[in-house]
């Protein structure tokens, strides 16, 4: 092959774009240690005071607790339904498989704002009391397509003869699912669960329209931001960035190790 004169330029461009993607996150982290209570650049001094103030804020504790409840319920429901849907479409979809998958993925093509207000009109029509339950229902709609997508991608590499062998050995459908299909899907389940957790934990728009009096963490950040920048926001934001980064890494590792395993 010829020497490639374009490559260094593309490499430099990619580095610049990655800087553009990451620099703003570092700016937030930097400001969270700023001694001054005004978020003014350059930062002066180093302090952990904002983090201490954060941990002492009881309103925040409640919001965090609500966010965790919603995220854990969302993960449980959407992972169970999504994995089931992906396996179902893969096994029994037949010629309707494509249509069924497209249908399951449509919420991805609808802005969160619309998912939120559509649910609000629906709840309004049936006079439903808004609570964390109504929030969870919306978060499942939002995360389900991601679970189905991740599980379907993993199922592409699935050898159906493994299920058939188990069938011939006398295993029932659910035994096969538990003993053969699910272990194969485990890395996808881990990744999908982590992804749903993060999506739900960070969601503000769908929550905004479907919650009653209960605040979640992003809702608190949202209302704090509307009254201007406060140093505490920097520290909450930094903590969520670190947490989602860690989740992303674990999910990627889980999927990647599985890929290496299956090609051997």
């Amino acid at each position, binding site marked *: 092959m010829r020497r490639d004169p374009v490559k260094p330029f*593309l*490499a430099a*461009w*990619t580095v610049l*774009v990655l800087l*553009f*993607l*990451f620099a*703003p*996150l570092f*700016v*937030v982290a930097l*400001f969270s240690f700023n001694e001054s209570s005004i*978020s*003014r*650049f*350059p930062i002066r001094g180093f302090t952990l005071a904002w983090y201490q103030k954060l941990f002492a804020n009881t309103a925040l504790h409640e919001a965090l607790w609500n966010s965790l409840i919603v995220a854990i319920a969302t993960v449980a429901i959407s992972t169970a*339904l*999504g994995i*089931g*849907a992906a396996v*179902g479409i893969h*096994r*029994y*979809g037949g010629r309707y498989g494509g249509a*069924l998958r497209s*249908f*399951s993925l*449509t*919420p991805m093509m*609808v*802005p*969160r*704002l*619309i998912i939120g*207000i*559509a649910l609000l*009109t*629906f709840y309004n029509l049936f006079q439903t009391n808004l609570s964390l339950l109504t929030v969870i*229902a919306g978060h*499942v*709609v939002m995360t*389900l397509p991601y679970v*189905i997508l991740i599980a379907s991608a993993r199922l592409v590499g699935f050898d159906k003869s493994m299920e058939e062998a188990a*069938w011939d050995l006398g295993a029932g459908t659910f035994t096969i699912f538990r003993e053969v299909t699910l272990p194969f899907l485990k890395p996808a389940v881990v990744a999908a669960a982590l992804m749903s957790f*993060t999506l739900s934990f*960070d969601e*503000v*728009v769908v929550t905004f*329209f479907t919650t009653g009096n209960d605040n979640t963490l*992003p809702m608190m950040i949202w209302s704090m*931001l*509307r009254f201007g*920048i406060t140093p505490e926001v*920097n520290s909450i*934001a930094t903590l969520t*960035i670190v947490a989602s980064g860690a*989740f992303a*890494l674990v999910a*990627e590792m889980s999927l990647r190790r599985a890929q290496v395993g299956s090609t051997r």
Partner: protein
Amino acid sequence: MRPSVGTVLSFLAAPKLWLVVFFVLPMMTMVLYSFWRVADYQIVADFTLRNYEKIGGSLYVGVFLRTIRISIYVTVLSLLIGYPVAYFLARKVRRFKLTLLLLVILPLWTSYLVRTYAWMLILGTQGVINQSLMAVGLIEEPISWLLYSDFAVTIALVHIYMPYLILPLYAVLEKINPSILEAAWDLGGGRIRTFLSVILPLSLPGIATGCLFVFIPSMGAFVTPELLGGTRSIMIGSIIAQQFGVAYEYPFGSALALVLMGIIFATAAFSLRYGKPKGLA
């Protein structure tokens, strides 16, 4: 394998049922509401086209046009910035490929609210850019249009949604068979010609999907324009949200949302139809 009807149903029906109850029915309710009206702070169920007539007024048409314009800027910028990255990842690197790919995916996992907020710290009058430029002596007064402007909204939306464009583009570019490229070389096509007449047409499906992944959420953006947009750069998302707040104009808000969905579906249908590779595929 002969599964029982019950098994098939439990695998297929339960997830579908959730989507029908909490997604399809709500969307249908929204359609219904868009033809109703509010009287004395009560939603009244009688058929009217008034909500849609109201949207025809110049105020809302203007906001729709601004929203479309900003979303197009965001999409085109994301494509121009993201295409070389996707191309580099797909065809030019081997050793650090997975690491680089992970770096592109990583920001997608962080909250869009936090990423929007980051731009307040960067673009504000006290922010990184203005204070740095002033320290160097390039400007004496902070540049006021950096924050609370279309500029701020556009740059933040590019930052938030561009990775969604890189991923499908990467997937398509990676699948291009190297022997097609070698054939183009052997036939005497130069670098630029090979790119324009082989690679670019073959990557059209990736471009179409990627652009939709940026355009759709930009059209429905609410948090970002609300925090970074100026008083004169309102997008339709904020107007729709207002109708479901203190204004209590659910029917009018539903009608606005349906018009928005109409524009989104039309764009999606158009780009998926014309986003197919011609000739070579």
